[in-house]
């Protein structure tokens, strides 16, 4: 089993990034690369669907943090959905749930973007 696989797909104005496995210091470059590719392509609204994400360490949080200013400066955002309990605990412990919009499901996250538009 690989430590991390990442699927990226478009959903309207947003790009959905679905990491599966573990984001840690070993896999973070792969995760960071996927996010950076989207930003380079001008895809500034990114939804991280975390339903298959087993855990994310501070290395992965740093990757998200490293891009948040760029996407928001370009009228985009990084949203989160389907966080497993332990992944939510990590985000919440570090105050990330105040920095990012978190949704129970992908549908609700995408609907919020439609309402916003």
């Amino acid at each position: 089993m690989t430590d991390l696989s990442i699927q990226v797909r478009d959903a309207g104005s947003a790009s959905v990034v679905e990491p599966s496995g573990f984001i840690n210091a070993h896999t973070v470059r792969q995760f960071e690369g996927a996010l950076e590719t989207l930003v380079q392509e001008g895809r500034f609204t990114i939804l991280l669907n975390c339903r298959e994400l087993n855990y994310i360490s501070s290395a992965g949080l740093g990757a998200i943090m490293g891009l948040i200013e760029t996407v928001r400066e370009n009228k985009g955002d990084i949203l989160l959905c389907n966080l497993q309990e332990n992944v939510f605990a990590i985000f919440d412990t570090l105050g990330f749930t105040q920095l990012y919009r978190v949704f129970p499901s992908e549908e609700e996250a995408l609907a919020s973007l439609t309402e916003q538009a």
Partner: protein
Amino acid sequence: MCPSPAMRMEKSDFRLTIPSQTRYLNLVTGLAKRASQLAGMDDSTAAKVSIAVDEAVTNIIMHAYGGEEDHSVELDLRFTETTLEIHMWHTGVGIRGNQIVLPDPKEYVKHPRKGGLGLLLMSRFMDEVRFSEEKGRSECCMIKNIA
């Protein structure tokens, strides 16, 4: 308080030495999670312990050894009646107590930046985190109380 490092293994100890390479993080965190469950912790607590171990071992590999892959990290898991102790030793650059600055999450939210989050997770998810040096080796000791 963390006990000083003991060189002999007790019956309830489990010791593992890994190369200073991030490819082994998953192995170590999996072990920490299973050990926590074996000690009687629930799945949620065990997951937090495994994250704290990921952060501690990552700090050793990336900062104490500067990312050099030809060193080793020694882990010693000690089961007591009331705690799980996780001792991690290395011969790289150690952290001294006065070098530890934990970011304030409230300030962090106002002024986000990269870095410093690993130590915060370790301190929030474990009941005790200590750093020490002895005989040319540095130790990070983390203790989780069994509820």
